[in-house]
């Protein structure tokens, strides 16, 4: 177990060739990922920059973001699989920028598991220990211990081919924890599992966390995983950190429009073209033709910033929208019955607004496609974002 310090970490892929549609030809079977807006400088393509983070002993950190945001690259730099182009990386007190992966005392769980196909489960888990010349008896003890924790004891003699996806996943984790690494890195470990298994393994990882004593760094593109697993979440986009915080913080107080949209499902509703106004010394918001006065807390925060009136985007989470005959009027475009709740896609003056409404005692007929529905939301639950900078004003 160790703390980690990342100081202004940067990753640049040098331009080896004049930039002309690279990659496309090479990995045909890898779908061409959405192009991220990475910064391209004279040095090359900047995949990660200004990445600074202190990770405490035993903390569970989740790096989350869309494809190409640099989260995997960051993880691979911590692992030593990618050279660090700039900044400093400490594991404990040791600067490890130039230390080989095997000497960093880290372990990693790969997205595709990367199990050695020619070795049995036992040998897969023992390989790292063998390379460290651990005595045989000790290897045996450690492998069996880890197998016990992960409930894969009966598969120790099998080869990976003969295992199911979930079992392979456990073996991959077993291989990583068997040598008590100071830091355990996980690169989208659940993304190859089907939805049901994924939920199950997610719970397993939470349990595992309490059984073994190590620092976790976990990469995922799935915000649900991030919210449920992380002590703290690092949200990244285009190589930059957008926000670092506990799940509660990033959900309740997203730092900018991107984080607000990325965290939480269904996605937060954004009302563009709104205005922040000051009336009688009080802040209010002009939204969809109405003026809503903000709550005391919001008033205080805005005053403290000495916020000037400006164009804003208002964000409201779908769960915070409630039926209200006095409120805004919208026409139901699509009505999705989810069982305990109803997802309504409303057309409100040309904006698409999603509302999540509990179904208990609800008149479903009144909420079917084409019907008009009235709704409102608690002003204190509004998120206000500067239309220009996209930053949260509060």
């Amino acid at each position: 177990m160790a703390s980690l310090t990342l100081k202004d970490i940067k990753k640049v892929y040098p331009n080896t060739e004049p930039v002309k549609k690279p990659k496309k030809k090479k990995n045909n079977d890898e779908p061409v990922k959405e192009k991220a807006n990475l910064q391209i400088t004279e040095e090359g393509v900047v995949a990660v920059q200004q990445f600074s983070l202190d990770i405490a002993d035993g903390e569970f950190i989740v790096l989350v973001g869309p494809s190409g945001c640099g989260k995997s690259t960051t993880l691979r730099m911590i692992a030593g699989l990618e050279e660090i182009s700039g900044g400093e990386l400490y594991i404990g007190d040791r600067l490890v920028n130039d230390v080989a992966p095997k000497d960093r005392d880290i372990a990693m769980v790969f997205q595709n598991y990367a199990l050695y196909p020619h070795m049995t489960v036992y040998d897969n888990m023992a390989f790292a220990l063998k390379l460290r010349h651990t005595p045989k008896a000790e290897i045996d003890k450690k492998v069996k211990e880890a197998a016990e924790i992960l409930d894969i004891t009966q598969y120790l003699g099998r080869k990976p081919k003969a295992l199911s996806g979930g079992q392979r996943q456990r073996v991959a984790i077993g291989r990583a924890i068997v040598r008590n690494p100071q830091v355990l890195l996980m690169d989208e470990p659940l993304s190859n599992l089907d939805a049901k298994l994924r939920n199950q393994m997610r719970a397993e990882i939470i349990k595992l966390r309490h059984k073994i004593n190590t620092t976790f760094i976990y990469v995922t593109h799935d915000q649900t995983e991030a919210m449920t697993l992380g002590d703290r979440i690092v949200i990244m986009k285009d190589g930059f950190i957008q926000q670092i915080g506990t799940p509660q913080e990033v959900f309740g107080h997203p730092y900018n429009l991107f984080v607000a949209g990325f965290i939480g499902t269904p996605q937060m509703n954004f009302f563009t073209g709104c205005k922040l106004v000051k009336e009688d010394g009080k802040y209010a918001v002009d939204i969809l033709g109405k003026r809503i006065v903000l709550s005391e807390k919001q008033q205080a925060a805005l005053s403290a910033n000495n916020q000037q009136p400006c164009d804003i985007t208002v964000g409201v989470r779908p769960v915070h929208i409630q039926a209200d005959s006095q409120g805004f009027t919208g026409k139901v475009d699509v009505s999705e019955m989810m069982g305990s709740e109803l997802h309504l896609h409303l057309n409100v003056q040309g904006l698409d607004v999603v509302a999540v409404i509990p179904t208990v005692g609800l008149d479903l007929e009144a909420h079917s496609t084409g019907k008009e529905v009235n709704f409102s939301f608690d002003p204190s639950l509004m998120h206000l974002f500067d239309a220009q900078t996209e930053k949260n004003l509060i």
Partner: protein
Amino acid sequence: MAKVKGNSPAPAAPANSVKPQKTPKKWLKHLWENYPFLVMVFPAVLVVFLFNYLPIYGVLIAFQDFMPGDPIFSKYTQWIGFGNFTRFFTDVQFWPLMKNTFLLCIIGFFIGFPLPIIVSLMLNAMKGKRMAKVLQTIFNGPHFISLVVLVGMLTLFFGRYGLVNNIVASLGGERVSYFLEASAFRPMYILSSNWQDFGWSAIIYIAALSSVDPGQHEAAILDGATRFQRVIHVDLPAIMPMVSVMLIMSIGGLMGVGYEKALLMQTDGNLAVSELIATYVYKQGLTGIPDQAYATAIGLFNSIINVILLIIANTTSKKFSENSLW
């Protein structure tokens, strides 16, 4: 290949490439970390150096008045420029050799190049996939027969006492050795080469065809295409890139016809058509009273023609399609 790298930025370099930085210190570190690869590649570098690069250096004797055993450089070395080349161009054998080599290659090319393509398309269009597999195995078989045995088999079929003559004789005809007939040399040479290698050459196209998305075929079926139309409009386009690459390669090797086989098939009777540039090099350089400098010059001339053909083929292909070797 399933890359483990999940979401590295798309436009960036491949994730596992730790590209050498420009600073000498980093370069040294990179070198130190990756020296095992240099150790692994070294034996191959050495073998290629000895058996491929030293001979390239050795072509210098083509420009010398060289006697076997002479060092390539010494103070006694007599440089004669292009003397050996002009001698070859004025050799009475020059035009016959050019013609023999060229004709054998060009006829062989026109039969040997399309045949594997057609066969692969036909195999791919077979209904019974297991049967196609069996046929492919059969077609590959002759590739493993040695040249000596192949030419031996030719004599057993077309020699004076071979199968053809045995049948002709049993019907009261006259025995004729086709090996002594100049006119039979090219057909025998080309047809036996094709017999031996068409299946093997088809492999590369069959592999390309097997990666055609079945969805394309299904879409074509729904569009009402017959199987033959699908061969023309789905299968053939799928292997075109491979076809152009192979075309460039075979044009580059056009004048590099296998002299080992020609040498085996040569008789006094067919020498007028079976003497090729390469067999002439062998005879001039290694048999009788060897004239190594002259033979080397002829060989070099042949190699240079090949390289020129390759470059022309490549540039042409680059111009008219996106496919090229470099």
